[in-house]
């Protein structure tokens, strides 16, 4: 069973890490847009 859980946990850890990187890139772009608008 531990192998089964390891595979399922690994899958979601990879997905969540990737989604987290997308969110951080999105907020960085939003900040850049705000800075450009304020100039």
């Amino acid at each position, binding site marked *: 069973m531990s192998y089964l859980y390891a595979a399922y946990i690994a899958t979601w850890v990879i*997905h969540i890490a990737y989604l987290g990187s*997308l969110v951080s890139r999105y907020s960085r772009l939003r900040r850049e847009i705000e800075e450009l608008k304020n100039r």
Partner: protein
Amino acid sequence: MKRAFPILAIATVIFLGYATYQALVVAPTERTMGDVQRIFYYHVSSAWTAGLLFFINFVASIVYLARRSQKVDALALASAEVGVVFCTIVLVTGPIWARPVWGIWWTWDMRLTLTLVLWLIYVSYLLLRRFSSSGQTPVMAAVLAIFGTLDMPLVYFSIWFFRTQHPQPVMGNGGSIDPRMLHAFFVNLIAFTCFGLLVCWARYRLEVLRQEVEEMQALESLLEVRSSR
């Protein structure tokens, strides 16, 4: 389309939860491998989604070379990046499944090796896009993607062309499968496909936004140069 995104995201999360329930609870335990066989529902669904995303990358790369559209280039990049994520899951869940069943984590079997080569090709594609500063980067990346796609049929047919450790598919190959397993498999396949396409869509929107910011920055520096003269 922007309003549809949160609704589709919630629907996909619910569907993924249902798919996991089908895989872990409803599908019967396989007789020889036991519970570890349930990795199959995630492993195969991830492999299918990676293949679909790499195919989208292939089509987008051809269209980009023909039309040089920035939005098509954004789609090519998005599909390759999300495809690499799903391919990584295939390469991680495969050895976790192999260890208790084959007694080894990895073997240089044709299917496994070609899948690793496919992953390396698309990682190179992403590295090229990340670190090359040439104006021709999207063109070079598109050409690399088109040649990289040639590995996909090799990955798929390798289990028939070569004697491999990796098993041949049970379905459509003279074998039979419990209907509850088949149902769990298709539910997971559809759920992972929806999830993969949704994440690809999000990544595409992010890339289009990045292109817009880059254009705004270029315009701003142009205006600065003009005003300084």
